[in-house]
C-alpha cells in the first residue's frame, strides 16, 4: 500500500513514460502539421522539392479552393458519402445488430462474418470489387444478364452509376465495425428489463422502440460521431477503384483529390491547402456531431 502511494506521489516515472509519446507526437504529428500550414502558403512545384518562397499573394491556394470546380465536386461527393455513411453504415449495422441479438443460435458466427471485411485490406477489397463491377464481363453484369434483369452489360463506373459503385463497397466494408460496437451495447442492456417489459405486454418492435433504442442512445451517438469523422478520411478503397476522378472528374473525394494534387501532379502547396481544408472540415463536423449526438449520462 505504502509503495503504491509513493509511486503516485512521485511524478518522475509518469514524466519518463509520457515524454516518449509526447516526442513521438511532436515529431510525427505536430511538426508535420505546422509544416503543412507553411507549405500551403509556399510555392512548391514538386514532391521533395524545396519551397521557392511564399506564393504571390500568399493566400493564392486558399483563393483557389473557392474557384476550383474539381474541389467543389470532391466536397459534394464527400458530403454525400458522409450522409450515406450515417444512413447506411450505422443504419444497416443497427438492424443487423438487433437481428443478431434476437437469435439464440449462431450469434457468434454472424458477429465474425459481419466483422470480417474490416480485417481485409482496402486495396484487396478494391481489387475484388473492381472484378465484381468489371465491364463487360464482371460478376455483377453476368449475374444480372443471367437473371434476365439487364440485356446488355452496364459500365458501372460510368457517369450514370459511379456514385453507387463507389459508395457500396465503402458502406459494406465498415458496417461490421459499427455492428460490433452496437452488439456490445446491446449486450450491456440488462435482460431483466426485457423480462419486465414482456410481462407488461411490450414485445417485438415495441420492445425495440421503448427499451432497446433509448438504452442504446449513447452507443449510437458514438457510432454516428465516428461515422461522420471517418467519412471525411475515406481514401484507399475509392482510390483503388476509381483512381484520379473517374469518370471524367466526377468521382473525386477530398482525400483522393488531395492525393492526386500532391503525389501525381507535384502541386504540393495546393495539396497542403486542401489538407488544411479537410482538417478544418473534420474539426467543425466532429464538433457539430458531438453537440448534436451528445451522450446523456442519465441513461
Amino acid at each position: 500500500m505504502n509503495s503504491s502511494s509513493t509511486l503516485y506521489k512521485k511524478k518522475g516515472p509518469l514524466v519518463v513514460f509520457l515524454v516518449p509519446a509526447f516526442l513521438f507526437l511532436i515529431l510525427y504529428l505536430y511538426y508535420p502539421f505546422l509544416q503543412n500550414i507553411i507549405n500551403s502558403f509556399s510555392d512548391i512545384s514538386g514532391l521533395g522539392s524545396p519551397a521557392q518562397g511564399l506564393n504571390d499573394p500568399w493566400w493564392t491556394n486558399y483563393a483557389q479552393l473557392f474557384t476550383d470546380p474539381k474541389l467543389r465536386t470532391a466536397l459534394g461527393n464527400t458530403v454525400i458519402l458522409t450522409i450515406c455513411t450515417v444512413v447506411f453504415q450505422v443504419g444497416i449495422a443497427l438492424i443487423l445488430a438487433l437481428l443478431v441479438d434476437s437469435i439464440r443460435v449462431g450469434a457468434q458466427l454472424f458477429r465474425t462474418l459481419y466483422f470480417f471485411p474490416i480485417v481485409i485490406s482496402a486495396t484487396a477489397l478494391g481489387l475484388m470489387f473492381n472484378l465484381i463491377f468489371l465491364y463487360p464481363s464482371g460478376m455483377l453484369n453476368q449475374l444480372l444478364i443471367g437473371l434476365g434483369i439487364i440485356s446488355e452489360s452496364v459500365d458501372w463506373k460510368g457517369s450514370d452509376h459511379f456514385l453507387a459503385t463507389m459508395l457500396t463497397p465503402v458502406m459494406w466494408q465498415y458496417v461490421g465495425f459499427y455492428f460490433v460496437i452496437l452488439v456490445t451495447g446491446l449486450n450491456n442492456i440488462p435482460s431483466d428489463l426485457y423480462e419486465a417489459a414482456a410481462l407488461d405486454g411490450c414485445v417485438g418492435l415495441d420492445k425495440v422502440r421503448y427499451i432497446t433504442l433509448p438504452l442504446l442512445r449513447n452507443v449510437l451517438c458514438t457510432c454516428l460521431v465516428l461515422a461522420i469523422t471517418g467519412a471525411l478520411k475515406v481514401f484507399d478503397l475509392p482510390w483503388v477503384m476509381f483512381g484520379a476522378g473517374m469518370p471524367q472528374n466526377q468521382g473525386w473525394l477530398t482525400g483522393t483529390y488531395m492525393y492526386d494534387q500532391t503525389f501525381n501532379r507535384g502541386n504540393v502547396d495546393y495539396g497542403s491547402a486542401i489538407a488544411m481544408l479537410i482538417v478544418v472540415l473534420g474539426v467543425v463536423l466532429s464538433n457539430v456531431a458531438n453537440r448534436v449526438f451528445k451522450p446523456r449520462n442519465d441513461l
Partner: protein
Amino acid sequence: MKKNRLFALTLAAVMLLSLLAGCADKPGSGGKETGKPNTPVELNVVTSYGGDDGNRKNYENAVKGYEDATGNKVQDASGTSNEEWKAKVLTDFETGTEPDVLFFFTNADAEPIIQAGKVVDIATIRAAYPDYADNMRDSMLAVASDGKNYAIPSSGFWENMFVNTKVLADCGVAVPGPDYTWDQFLTDCQTIKDKGYTPIACSLFEVPHYWFEFCVMNNGTLDSQLDIPASADDAVGKKWAAGLNDIKDLYERGFFPVNTLTATDPETVQLFGDGEAAFLIDGSWKVTHFVDNYPEHLEEFAISYVPAKGERKASEAIGGISMGYFITKKAWDDPAKREAAVKFVEHMTSDDVMSNFVTTEVTALKNGASPSGLNELQQSAADANGAITGVVGAVQDAVSPECKAELFANVQRVVTGDMTAEDAVAAAIALN
C-alpha cells in the same frame, strides 16, 4: 520497488531509442569504411527494375554476378517506375538519403539532381577511370542542360502498334505495313467494329499518351515532335490541338472500347490479349507482358506500324534511350565506395549483361547487343524495328509533370466535348 523503477526506466529508454532508430544511417552508408580497396563494401542501389518489371529476373542475376565477382554486397531498393517512384527518388536526394548508384530517367526528370550537383558527370569519372563505359557510343549518351553527360545508358524503348492478327484475319483486314495510312486505318477500324470487335484497345482514362504522341506527330513531323508550344495559338499548340481532335474523332466513331473513359490500362490490354480488340499502341515493355501472360498465343500478336497522315511516315516511331546509370556524388566522394560503384555500373552496362536485358530494344552499345532465342512476338518486333526509318523521343518527357498530368487528364473531357482541344492545350501549357 527498485525492480519496478528499473523496469520502467528501461522500457522508457527502449521506447526513446526506437524513436531515434529512424535517424540512423542506412546500412553500409556509415563513415566507418576505412577506404581499403579490397574490403567488401555494401552498395546502395536504386533502379526501376522492381516489382513485376519484365527484367527483374535479369536484374537479379546481373546483381548476383557482380556480387560473386567482387565480393561486394548490393542493397537493392528498386521500385516500379511511375510518377510516385520518381518523386520518392528525388525526395531521397533532397533529404540526403540518396543511393550510391541510381538507374533513373535521363531527361528533364533528372535535372533537379544534376543541377544540385548530386551526381557525377562521366568526364570526371573517366579522368580517374579512363575505360569507364568505353563500350558505349558517346554520341548516344544523354546530354544534360549543362552540356555534360551523366548517365551510362541501358536498354532503350520503342512505342509502336501491336496488332491481334487473329482478329484482323477474322475481319478480313490485312496486317498493316510501313505504308499504312490514316484513311485506310479508319476504314479498317469501321470494318472491325462492324464485325463486333473493338478496333482500338486503349484506356483514355489512364494511358491516352500513346495515341497523343503519334497523333501529334501525324499533324507535324518527326523533327518537330519535341517542340513545346508557347501558347495554344502558336503552330505547335495548333499541332497538339489537332492531335487531340484526331483522338476525339476516333472516340466519336466508337473505335475505342465502350468503357475507355472508365477502364484501366490492364483491362484494355486484356481486351486485346483475349482477342476482343484489334489494335494497341504500347511500348517495348509490353512484349514481355504478352510473353509472360499469353505464351500459347504469341503467334496471334504482331508488331506493326501506327497509321500515318500528313508528312509523317508510318515507319516513324517513338523511341530512344530514356534511362541510365548515375553514380552519386555521395558514393564518388567515399573512397571505399567509389570503385565499387564504378565497377557496378561497368558490370551492368557490359555487352554480356546488356544482351540479357535486350530483346528488341535500342542500345548504345558499340558492338550492339546479341539477344538470342527470340519468340514469334519478339521476332515480329525485331522485323518491324528493322523497317523503322526514324525514331524520336516522347514529347511528354519534355514537359513538367504537372503540365503532363493536366493535359492527359483533360483528354477525356476533349473527346466527350466537355472542353475544346485548344483549351486543353492552353490549360496544360499554363502549368509548364
